[in-house]
């Protein structure tokens, strides 16, 4: 005996649950489409020229992104030099000494920093470096990216240091080893895998950022010697080429897109892989 109205409830149940499955399918498909389409468009354009040559003048076909690739590498190097020490040591402070009001303030500030739109970071680097120096520079771009790296480096460091069992610290202290040596030589190495994976993810996020570079590192058709000249970078080149009217530039934009995508995917997967081995 099926009570009246029950059939309708069963239908609604099946419908709504299928809808959630459909949403999941839709989201997965979109992801696969994006990855696949970039791969499809980009794979044909990547060749030796692309990786080693400089861009050709506007309108001419051919040329490559060598300077953009090197530019991105330099920017990431500088960004890590700034973001990693601050985030890492700040994270050490929070995990080992920061169980107080000041620690709360630092965490809140880092959260704030993390929420600032990347374009606003670009404005900040512009006001403190580009304006006084009266020029665009790799330095300014690196600083903008570096500041963006701080919050995630901080959070990863703190979280993984917290995971190290107290018994390890206690054993070391009981041996007469001073606190700072305990932290530096015993606790931090124990958390290293996790911290490294966090920094890898951090770098991969920052590698794809375009907005903060638009008016700090700006762009450059040629090589950018040193740190005080504007430089090309993969994301900015992709943007510039994509919005241009030239077919050949579009082709190159896809190729750079694929390179950037591969960078990000490899970083993401390896970061998680490092973690899996540890846990």
């Amino acid at each position: 005996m099926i009570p009246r109205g029950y059939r309708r409830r069963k239908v609604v149940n099946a419908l709504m649950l299928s809808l959630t499955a459909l949403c999941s399918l839709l989201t997965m498909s979109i992801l696969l489409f994006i990855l696949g389409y970039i791969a499809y468009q980009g794979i044909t354009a990547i060749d030796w020229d692309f990786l080693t040559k400089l861009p050709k003048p506007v309108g001419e076909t051919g040329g490559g992104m060598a300077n953009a690739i090197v530019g991105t590498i330099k920017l990431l190097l500088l960004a890590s030099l700034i973001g990693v020490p601050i985030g890492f040591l700040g994270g050490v402070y929070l995990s080992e000494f920061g169980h107080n009001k000041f620690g709360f303030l630092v965490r809140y500030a880092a959260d704030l920093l993390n929420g600032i739109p990347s374009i606003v970071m670009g404005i900040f680097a512009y006001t403190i470096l580009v304006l006084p120096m009266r020029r665009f520079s790799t330095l300014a771009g690196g600083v903008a990216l570096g500041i963006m790296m701080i919050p995630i480096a901080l959070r990863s460091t703190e979280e993984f240091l917290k995971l190290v069992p107290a018994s390890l610290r206690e054993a070391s202290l009981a041996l007469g080893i001073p606190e700072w040596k305990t932290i530096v030589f015993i606790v931090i190495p124990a958390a290293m895998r996790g911290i490294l994976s966090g920094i890898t993810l951090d770098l991969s996020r920052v590698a794809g950022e375009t907005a903060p570079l638009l008016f700090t590192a700006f762009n450059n058709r040629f090589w950018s010697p040193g740190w005080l000249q504007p430089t090309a970078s993969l994301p900015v080149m992709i943007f510039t080429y994509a919005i241009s009217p030239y077919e050949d530039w579009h082709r190159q934009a896809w190729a750079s897109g694929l390179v950037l995508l591969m960078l990000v995917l490899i970083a993401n997967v390896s970061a998680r892989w490092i973690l899996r081995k540890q846990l």
Partner: protein
Amino acid sequence: MAKTKSIAGILGEARRHLPRAFGSILAQGSKTGLRFGDRLFRRLTLAFAFSIVALTLLIAYELYRNSVLSIGKFGWGFFWSSTWDPVFQNFGALPFLYGTLVTSFVALAISTPVGLGVAIFLSELAPRWLSDPIAFLVELLAAIPSVLYGLIGIFVLVPIMRSLGAPYGVGMLTAGVLLAVMIVPFITSISREVLMAVPQAQREAALSLGATKWEMTWMAVLPYARSGIVGAIFLALARALGETMAVTMVIGNRPEIKLSFLEPGYTMAAVIANEFTEATYDLYINALVEVGLFLFAVTIVVNALARLLILSVAKKVEVRE
């Protein structure tokens, strides 16, 4: 954790067999330098931690300092005026506020049901072996750089929109749709966590009354997780507000307020991205920085609200235990 075990093992060994050799190397200077080394280390890490707070304050200050000219000239009217005229040095940010609101609203309208749907599927329907990999893949959507979304936007989405009837292809609706895809992972991952935190006892209470799985979700799970889900939406909103590249590549970049979402528009982040390098005089730059300052303030508020809401669900679960 194999690595930590081996270190503890080494310490154990040291303790037993090599008290002088190993222990003394690390304990070197411990008698005289103990307090000094520790104090130095603490001060060092404190300094770096403090620099983060100082940096945040500096950013706020610099944004303010570099927008005083514009604040002084236009006052609050800056946000009411819809004239953005660099030639006549008259700046009003209303078109950008409007565009930002419209694109964010469209993005949330699309991504909230879809993101929540995925979260419900992952939390209530899918078995663990399916739920975890799919959750990872959804997070991958968040890892794709904005400029690549823009690339797909220009060459795939815009033609599609044009073929569906949008005369320009680019526009606020297109930007909203693209944004929606970008913020779905934020809604899904937080909602999923929040849903999974709902105590099993609540589900059982609903089921034992004769509820179907969907009725259980609707009656017992979603209401319990309500504030966390709203928090996830706020977080996604904060992301949408600051999104620059993908939006600027498909929105048409026209500083006009139009009713139809099919029309091109402009957002706060997009105008900064496009015009900053063309701002040739101080007032122009100040006006753009003021837009940035406003964006900064708004995202802080929205983010703070989001965190409060998400934390409140965690507290609810704790109290119950």
